[in-house]
């Protein structure tokens, strides 16, 4: 990361720590939701943005994580173990869902994962003995960690922010390792990657499993954040919303999901001033953004930075030479 990047990230961290002191409870709830969904979007960015495997099942994994968490908390398990269990369960199921991706790609894979989301929704709704069906699970307690109670909205926000920071650091570190390079190679040219010794099967499964595991961790925060979960929250809408976050932020950019989740969580709320038109206005903004900037908001910023540097021309590379296949 260059110096400008460090300054921007540092300012964002300070802002994220300071902002709950100036917000009403609903505002704190929204930024907590941002932190929680950023984790899930980061997982999808790994699967889709880096490794190039489309998935419309990310919302279902958030649901699996949330239900696992709600049920285990009510069964009296300590929260740290619940948190890890939700992640591991989704990792394992995600590994299984990766198998179709070894056979089909692109829109076929989108349909496979879409069917999975529907399946999960039906299980959550119909298997009442386990999930309590459409009545949902309410009264999910927020955890107390080493004597620190997160029951208060602001405390829980800081807990979510801390979890986001740790998970983001781990993801950053993994993407800098040879795995990150292998995921990009898998996305850009799987046949060449295979001929260079990359076990593309294992990397594909791993990309699905880790992406799903992050969704599970996100779900483990989601359940105590909203304190009431029901199947509809994890239907296709959430998966589409997470996909939107990745694409609006900039797929394959590390910070894309942070920006994308901010847009997807806050913009609809700001649009409420337009009353009943808000979803229409929101949809129109998203369409315009993607029509003029298919590489997302961070892609747009990157392009602007490169264009201004290119004009100065320090290395003699034409500014329009990058991104040979956007």
């Amino acid at each position, binding site marked *: 990361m260059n110096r400008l990047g460090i300054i921007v990230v540092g300012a964002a961290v300070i802002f994220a720590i300071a902002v709950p002191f100036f917000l009403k409870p609903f505002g704190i709830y929204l930024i907590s939701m941002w932190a929680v969904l950023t984790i899930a979007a980061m997982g999808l960015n790994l699967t889709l943005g880096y490794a190039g495997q489309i998935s419309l099942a990310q919302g279902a994994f958030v649901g699996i994580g949330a239900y696992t968490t709600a049920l285990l908390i009510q069964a009296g398990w300590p929260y740290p173990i619940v948190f890890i269990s939700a992640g591991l369960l989704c990792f394992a199921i995600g590994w299984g869902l990766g198998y179709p991706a070894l056979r089909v790609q692109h829109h076929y894979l989108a349909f496979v994962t879409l069917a999975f989301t529907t399946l999960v929704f039906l299980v959550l709704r119909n298997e009442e003995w386990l999930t309590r069906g459409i009545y949902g699970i309410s009264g999910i307690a927020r955890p107390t960690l080493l004597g620190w109670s997160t029951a208060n909205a602001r405390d829980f926000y800081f807990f979510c922010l801390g979890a986001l920071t740790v998970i983001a650091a781990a993801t950053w570190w993994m993407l800098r*390792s*040879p795995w990150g390079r292998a995921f*990009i190679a898998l996305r850009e040219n799987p046949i*060449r990657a295979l001929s*260079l010794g990359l076990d593309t099967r294992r990397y594909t499964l791993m990309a699905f499993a880790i992406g799903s595991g992050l969704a599970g961790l996100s779900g483990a925060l989601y359940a105590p954040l909203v304190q009431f979960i029901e199947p509809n929250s994890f239907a296709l809408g959430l998966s589409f919303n997470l996909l939107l976050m990745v694409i609006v932020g900039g797929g394959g950019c590390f910070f894309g999901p942070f920006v994308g989740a901010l847009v997807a969580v806050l913009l609809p709320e700001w649009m409420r001033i337009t009353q009943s038109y808000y979803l229409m206005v929101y949809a129109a903004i998203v369409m315009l953004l993607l029509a003029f900037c298919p590489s997302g908001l961070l892609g747009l910023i990157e392009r602007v930075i490169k264009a201004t540097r290119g004009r100065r021309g320090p290395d003699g590379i034409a500014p329009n030479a990058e*991104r040979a296949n956007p």
Partner: protein
Amino acid sequence: MTAVLQVSNLRKTFGGITAVDGVSFEVRDGEILGIIGPNGSGKSTLFNCVLGQLLPTGGQVHVDGKPTTGMRPCDLNRLGVSRTFQLLQVFPQLSVRDNLIVAGQEHQGSMYTRLFGRADAGLGDAADRMIEFFRLSHLADEQAGSLSYGQQKLLDAAMAFMAGPRLVLLDEPAGGVNLTMLANLRERLQAYHSEHKATFVVIEHQMEFVMALCTRVLVLAEGRIIAGGAPQEIRSNPAVIDAYLGHGSARP
């Protein structure tokens, strides 16, 4: 001399079409074997069967005496068999250096030790040496997709060498490259060959390139080998002129 690659009676059919029809040959340690033949003669299919990209209908492939028929390309690569493709195959959004590191990293430890190892898998210096060898040093940090066609072609070849392979199969390395770059590429391939005692198999259309680079040439037509020998013999073989060069060939 040991055979690095041994292909015996290899066959590949697609429905009713026989693309490779009982081909047998050996590649000896340290040689540069050229395989020529008109379009549709089965050269690329032969390559793809040898390299595990396609499952052959019949016949066997051995690398260093080990049977490798039907082995996955990634496992074959880890045995030391590397290739380039007819069409350019670099990773456009990775930098030149990262293209080379990714081409070698899977040979370093296991998948799980790599996760906890160094970010460059310990290959940063090796990548820089390879970049220097192929004279791409000034482009090391550029995205591969922003390089010119000829530079990408050099990178493409460099990637195949990154893991220090025992055997490299080059599929039309000269395709679409201009004459200056072609001489440069040939000279680099020869330099690599003599420096590392590598073994190459080259599929190529460009006759001058094959004649200058290869120590032995096989001619493929309609899925069969119709001739084999030193470049000079091949050039004057009447069956070859008939099948490949054509009657009207004015070449000396």
